[in-house]
C-alpha cells in the first residue's frame, strides 16, 4: 500500500525532524516562539489527519481534548499540588478515555452528526468547567509554574511529533490503515468485506484524543496561567482542521505543509489585523473547499500525475 508507507517518507520525516531540532540553536526569542507554535500545531494537525483524513469524518473535538489537557495540568498543579510530569501522564489518559466514550457514542452515526457533535463539545465542556469553577472551586487562577524554557517544550513537542509520525507511518502500512481507507471510500462496502467499522474508527479517534490532550499539557507552561476560555477555545479546532486540509491529508507530511504557512499567516494577522482573524479563517475554509479539496499536496500530485501521463 502506498500513501506514505514507503521508506522514503520515513527518511523525509527524519530529515525534517533533524532540521527542526536545529531551530533552537539559531532562533532568537521571537522566532523560537513561532517555532513552538508551529511544533504544537504540527502534532495536532498530523494526529488529526490520522483519523479524519482517511475516514472523512471532520472532527472538531481537538479543542475539547486540548483543553482537557491544559485544564487538568492547571488544576492539578494549582489545586492539588501535583507535579507537572504526573499530569503529563494522567491528562492524556483522561483525554483518551473521553475520546473513546465520544467515539463509541457517535462514530456509529453518520459523518454529519459527528461533526456537529464535536462542534458543540468544546463549548459544552468550557461552559461546564467555567460553571463549576465559578460556583464550587472559586475563581482562583490556575497557574502552571515550571522551570521549562520554550526550547525545552519545543524539543518535547518534536519528540511527540516524531512518535505521531511513526505511528501514522505504521498504521498506513497496516490492516487498520487499509480498513480506514476503505471506510472513507464506502462505509457500506467496508462492513461487507468484514471490517468492524466502529472499532477501526474508535481506535484512531481515541489516539487523536490522547495526543491532543498531551499537547495541551505540554504547552501549558508556556502560558503559565490557564483559564477555561482560553484552552477550550473552539478556534483551535478550526485552525487545526484548516491546516491539515490546506496541506492535504493524503500524505503523512501533508498537514505539515499546511501548518507552517498558516501559522505564519496567523502570526501576521494577529499582529496587524487582529480584527480580521475570523474573516481569515472563513476565507481559508472557502479556499480549501473550492480550490484545494485535496490540499496543496494533493493539488501538486495531481499536476505531477497529469504531466506524467502527457509524456507517455
Amino acid at each position, binding site marked *: 500500500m502506498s500513501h506514505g508507507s514507503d521508506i522514503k517518507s520515513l527518511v523525509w520525516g527524519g530529515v525534517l525532524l533533524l532540521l527542526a531540532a536545529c531551530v533552537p540553536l539559531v532562533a532568537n526569542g521571537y522566532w523560537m516562539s513561532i517555532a513552538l507554535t508551529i511544533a504544537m500545531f504540527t502534532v495536532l494537525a498530523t494526529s488529526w489527519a490520522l483519523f479524519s483524513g482517511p475516514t*472523512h469524518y*471532520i472532527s472538531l473535538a481537538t479543542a475539547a481534548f486540548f483543553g482537557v489537557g491544559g485544564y487538568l495540568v492547571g488544576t492539578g498543579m494549582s489545586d492539588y499540588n501535583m507535579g507537572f510530569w504526573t499530569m503529563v501522564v494522567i491528562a492524556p489518559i483522561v483525554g483518551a478515555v473521553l475520546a473513546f466514550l465520544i467515539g463509541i*457514542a*457517535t462514530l456509529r*452515526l*453518520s*459523518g*454529519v*452528526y459527528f*461533526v*456537529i*457533535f464535536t*462542534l*458543540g463539545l468544546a*463549548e*459544552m465542556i468550557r*461552559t*461546564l468547567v*467555567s*460553571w463549576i469553577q*465559578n*460556583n464550587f472551586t472559586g475563581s482562583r487562577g490556575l497557574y502552571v509554574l515550571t522551570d521549562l524554557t520554550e526550547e525545552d517544550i519545543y524539543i518535547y513537542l518534536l519528540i511527540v511529533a516524531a512518535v505521531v509520525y511513526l505511528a501514522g507511518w505504521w498504521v498506513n502500512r497496516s490492516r487498520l490503515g487499509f480498513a480506514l481507507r476503505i471506510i472513507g471510500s464506502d*462505509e457500506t462496502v467496508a462492513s461487507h468485506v468484514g471490517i468492524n467499522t466502529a472499532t477501526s474508527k474508535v481506535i484512531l479517534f481515541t489516539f487523536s484524543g490522547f495526543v491532543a490532550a498531551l499537547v495541551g499539557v505540554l504547552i501549558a507552561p508556556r502560558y503559565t496561567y490557564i483559564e477555561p476560555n482560553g484552552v477550550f477555545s473552539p478556534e483551535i479546532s*478550526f485552525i487545526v482542521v484548516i491546516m491539515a*486540509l490546506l496541506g492535504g491529508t493524503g500524505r503523512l507530511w501533508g498537514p505539515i505543509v499546511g501548518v507552517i504557512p498558516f501559522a505564519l499567516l496567523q502570526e501576521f494577522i494577529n499582529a496587524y489585523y487582529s*480584527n*480580521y*482573524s*475570523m*474573516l*481569515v*479563517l*472563513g*476565507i*481559508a*475554509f*472557502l479556499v*480549501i*473547499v*473550492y480550490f484545494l*479539496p485535496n490540499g496543496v499536496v494533493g493539488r501538486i500530485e495531481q499536476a505531477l500525475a497529469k504531466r506524467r501521463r502527457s509524456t507517455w
Partner: protein
Amino acid sequence: MDIIITGLLLGGTYALIAFGLNMQYGVAKIMNLANGEFLVLGALAAFWIFVVDAISPILTMLIVGPMSFFGNWLIYQLLLRPLVRRAKNQGHLEVDSILATFGMSFVLVGIMVSIHGEYFTYSYLAEPFEIVGETFALNRIVAFCFAVLLGGALWLWLYLTRPGMAMRAVSVSTEASGLVGINVPRMSALAFAFGGAVTTMGGTLISTFITLDASVGVIFTMKALIIIIMGGVGDIRGLIIASIILGLVETTVARLIDPGLTLAAAYAIFVLVLLFRPQGLFGRKPT
C-alpha cells in the same frame, strides 16, 4: 406555571428558526452551518432600524425576509450548486457543504464584528402582559404570536399547495422526486432561500427579547440542529414538539439551576437523542 408558559413562548420562537434550517437540510440537503449568522443578520437589522428610525422590528421583519430570501438563493446558486454537482454521494456533499458553510459563517461573523462589535439589545414592547394571573414580557408574546402566524402560513403552504408538496417530496427522496418530474435543483434552491428567509425573520423576532452579539450565531445554529435532529429531519410535527421541549428545558434550567447552563442542557439533550434515538422522535430509522 410561569416557567411552562415562558418555555412555550421560547419554544415557539425556536420552532420558527429551526424551520429554516429544516428546509435547508431536509429539502436542499445542505447542512448550513451559517444559518445562525443569518439569524443574527436579521437581529442586527432590526436593532439598527429600530435605534435609528424607531421602526418596529415587525416591519423590519417583512423587509429583511425577502432580502434574505434573495441572498440565500444567490448563495445556493453560486456557492452551493457547484458542490452538489461535484459530490459523488450524499456523504461527500455533506462534508463539503459543512466546510463551505462554516467558511461562510466565519466570513459573515468577521464582517458583522467589524460593523458592530459589541452586544446589541433594544427595548421593544418590554412591558408586562398578563396571562392567567402571571405577568410575562409582551415582546415574548408578540414574537411567539408572529412565529405561530408565520409557521402556520408556511405549514399551510407546504401541505396545501403543489409547490409545497413538491418540496415535501424532495425531502423524502431527491431521486424519486426527480423521476416524477419535480425540478429538484430549482426546488432545492427555493427551499434554501425560503429557509434562510424564515431564519432571518426569526432573528428579528428574537432580537426583541434577547441580547445578541455578532458571534452568537453558532449557538443558534446548534440549537436549530438539535431541534431538527431531535424531531427527525424533515418532519414538522417533530420539529414543533422538539422546539417546545427545548424551550421548556432551557427555561427550567435557567430559572431553577443557572442561566449559564442553558447551552449545556441543550447539548445534553442532543447527546441523549444521539445515543438512544438518532433518527429523532418522528424520523425514519436509518437502514
